[in-house]
């Protein structure tokens, strides 16, 4: 581990004591086992670095899937005051509104099993995936700008989905305040033909089966039952989002120098939320977030078409419906109570998921009683968890929880460890049919490169940041 000294607070929390230029302490949610597995990872130092940023409130947080990023750690959560606080592109990440959506169907596991090769193959052909993948849709600049303002609403308006879908997404699939004039020509150019594409790396589309229900009452409200076939999609804002982050990072590195702000890492470049530069970034980030929602909405549409085609079913017989859609790389203006006082804060979640409690006004009416559905994908071919948000998350982590398994092995180390092995054969032996556009992706994304998802989930459940509802097991997987 780095030179940071950690103090264990309780079973699930470690404190990074306030030292030097830190404005607040850091708090890491983890377990003894996960802390041990962290090894030489520099993420605790990154938690301390984030604590130095102006206007940070309460503490710099990290979730149990934390690992070494650049600037902010992956799995980091930090909230900043509107007055005197900052917004940081590096605190959101390159893949703005990278996120997950879960759809369930009327199908049972035994019904799909015999057709699985055909299903996976059809999905692979029908859903554009892979490095630099471009979709069948090419947007004019004016149409693209509408996507940036309207998000998933644009997709629904154009026949890709329904109003019900919009009700089942964080923020209704559209972040307010998006202004395409703050998005560069380069970003628009990269975005013109990538809406509705999965991308590469850790992004995937997975056919899953509900394996276990932990909370029957909540699961029934979410429409989830044991043995049911579901689909999980993990993708983001593609090249457009990467370019928005990169453009503003370059701009804000200079801005920070002009302000004379001393930062421990240039990747933490930021602007005061209320400054013109801060407002511009927030408006551009919202555009990228909306692009990502439109992207996932179209991926869902094509998934439905592929399943219908492969299985010879009508849309009604397939009965595919969206459970929820969450983003895990984002900064949002939210109301939170800090030291008994209601405050408007800019909450950064970089590799962390919002987990709002039952009764929260931001939740759709149908989930008002259960709390916000939280979707956590595991490593490739393992499956996923569905959880719900809690009041404790609201009190301790600005309504946030983990976002995935979190890497433990570098991509280079994974490539080395996979030499001479067939990862796709190994996955098949585990009952998961995998198709990938690039061979290298499978090796880099092999299960042992990630932390144990069960352990990560047990920490957030045990610490009360969210509650387990269901576990899903993968049976088919499309990788970029």
């Amino acid at each position: 581990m780095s030179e940071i000294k950690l103090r264990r607070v309780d079973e699930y929390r470690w404190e990074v004591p306030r030292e030097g230029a830190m404005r607040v302490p850091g708090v890491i949610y983890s377990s003894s086992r996960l802390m041990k597995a962290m090894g030489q990872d520099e993420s605790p130092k990154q938690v301390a670095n984030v604590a130095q940023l102006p206007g940070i409130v309460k503490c710099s947080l990290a979730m149990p899937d934390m690992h070494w990023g650049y600037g902010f750690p992956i799995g980091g959560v930090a909230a900043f005051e509107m007055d005197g606080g900052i917004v940081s592109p590096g605190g959101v990440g390159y893949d703005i509104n990278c996120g997950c959506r879960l759809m369930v169907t009327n199908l049972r596991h035994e019904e799909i099993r015999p057709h699985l090769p055909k299903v996976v193959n059809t999905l692979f052909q029908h859903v554009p995936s892979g490095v630099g993948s471009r979709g069948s849709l090419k947007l004019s600049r004016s149409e693209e700008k509408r996507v940036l303002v309207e998000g998933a609403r644009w997709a629904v308006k154009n026949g890709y989905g329904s109003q019900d879908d919009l009700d089942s997404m964080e923020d209704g699939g559209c972040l307010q305040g998006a202004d395409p004039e703050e998005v560069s020509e380069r970003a628009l150019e990269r975005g013109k033909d990538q809406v509705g594409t999965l991308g590469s790396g850790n992004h995937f589309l997975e056919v899953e089966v509900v394996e276990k229900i932990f909370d029957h009452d909540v699961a029934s409200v979410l429409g989830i039952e044991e043995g049911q076939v579901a689909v999980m999609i993990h993708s983001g804002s593609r090249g457009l989002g990467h370019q928005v982050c990169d453009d503003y990072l370059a701009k804000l590195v200079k801005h920070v120098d002009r302000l004379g702000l001393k930062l421990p890492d240039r990747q933490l470049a930021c602007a005061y939320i209320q400054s013109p530069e801060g407002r511009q970034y927030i408006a551009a980030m919202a555009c990228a977030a909306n692009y990502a929602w439109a992207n996932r909405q179209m991926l869902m549409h094509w998934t439905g078409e592929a399943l219908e085609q492969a299985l010879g079913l009508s849309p009604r017989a397939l009965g595919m419906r969206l459970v929820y859609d969450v983003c895990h790389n984002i900064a949002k203006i939210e109301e939170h109570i800090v030291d008994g006082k209601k405050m408007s804060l800019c909450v950064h979640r970089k590799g962390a998921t919002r987990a709002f409690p039952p009764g929260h006004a931001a939740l759709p009416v149908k989930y008002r009683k259960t709390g916000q559905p939280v979707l956590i994908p595991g490593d490739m071919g393992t499956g996923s968890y569905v959880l719900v948000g809690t009041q404790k998350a609201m009190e301790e982590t600005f309504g946030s929880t983990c976002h995935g398994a979190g890497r433990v092995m570098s991509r280079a180390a994974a490539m080395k460890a996979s030499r001479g092995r067939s990862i796709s054969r190994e996955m098949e032996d585990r009952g998961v049919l995998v198709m990938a556009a690039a061979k290298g992706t499978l090796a880099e994304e092999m299960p042992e490169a990630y932390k144990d998802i069960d352990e990560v989930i047990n920490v957030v459940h045990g610490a009360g940041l969210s509650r387990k509802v269901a576990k899903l097991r993968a049976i088919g997987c499309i990788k970029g």
Partner: protein
Amino acid sequence: MKSYQAFDHTADLGLAITGASEEELFANAACAVFDIITDLDRVEAREMRRIAVEGDGREDLLINFLREVLYLYNGEHWLLKEIRIVRISEKGLEAEARGEPLDGQKHEICKEIKAVTYHQARVCQTPAGWTARVIFDV
């Protein structure tokens, strides 16, 4: 000997690059990026593109330069085969890149590099020449 080596960084790709001169270091860094993106043996130097970037010190210059180099592929779907640094100072550089547009039939894309980061970026002059370390988001 390869003019670059990958080093371990949990989620991303770290590259340690070497060069006999500053010009060579920057040229090697650009070629390293494309060596990772594609099989360079299949890329031909048929077209020339000029690159001009400014920077505030060597690290900043290297990052801004790699940003432009990366955009050739990410934004323009163009593959770089070789590059010549025409002029370089701490404040800016001009370069001539040679390569060709991406052709799905001819070229293979091995890996996507999302972006170049400032995290722990270093450029150093050593008795043996020049070295740099950069972390990319992949």
